[in-house]
């Protein structure tokens, strides 16, 4: 079980890595590690979903990804994020988490998708 949560952390981390890469890539060969990190991201996502409910994994993954990119925007890329944007990003993330938790609830009820 603990191993699965490590996979969640790893997939979230590599998600942020390739997003960062998308923004700094300037040479053709930069895409080699970026594509590699995307596959690593997917690998850990699949691993995490083996033992944890998919909805839960994805909800956390999406939340960390969104918060992470917002922080990246402000502190690394020097963008400003107004209160309004933060507010609407937060609402959107709550919606994503809500949908994924609903998925998790259905999984526990044994409903077939």
């Amino acid at each position, binding site marked *: 079980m603990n191993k699965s949560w490590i996979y969640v952390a790893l997939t979230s981390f590599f998600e942020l890595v390739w997003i960062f890469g998308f923004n700094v890539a300037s040479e053709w060969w930069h895409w080699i590690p970026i594509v590699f990190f995307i596959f690593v991201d997917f690998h850990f996502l699949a691993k995490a979903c083996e033992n944890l409910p998919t909805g839960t994994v994805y909800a956390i993954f999406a939340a960390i990804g969104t918060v992470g990119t917002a922080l990246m925007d402000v502190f690394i890329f020097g963008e400003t994020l107004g209160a309004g944007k933060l507010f609407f990003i937060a*609402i959107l993330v709550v919606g994503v988490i809500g949908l994924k938790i*609903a998925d998790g609830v259905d999984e526990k009820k044994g409903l077939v998708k």
Partner: protein
Amino acid sequence: MGWLFVFAAAISELVGVVGLNKYSEQKTFTNTILFGGGFGAAFAFLYMSFNYLQVSTAYAVWIGIGTAGAVLINMLFFGESRSKGRIASLLLIVIGVVGLKALS
């Protein structure tokens, strides 16, 4: 302009997810193209949107639309329950996307 790319990225991701499901059932050439092509296109469009929009805005909307799109497809075509929780969550995502659009 950037918004077209984000929407295209979200739709491509949905194609990729459908392809992945089909691919896991049967590894045909068509399913491989759907799977690889869908996700490949999603990342390409997302990359292009980053050139026009802030990273955090583009990423949040991509995740939101992708998630909402998957749920809508499941509801409309695969009989997933239309619980109040799901409807409320979909509304939140729509409000978030519209709000970010208005502020950009």
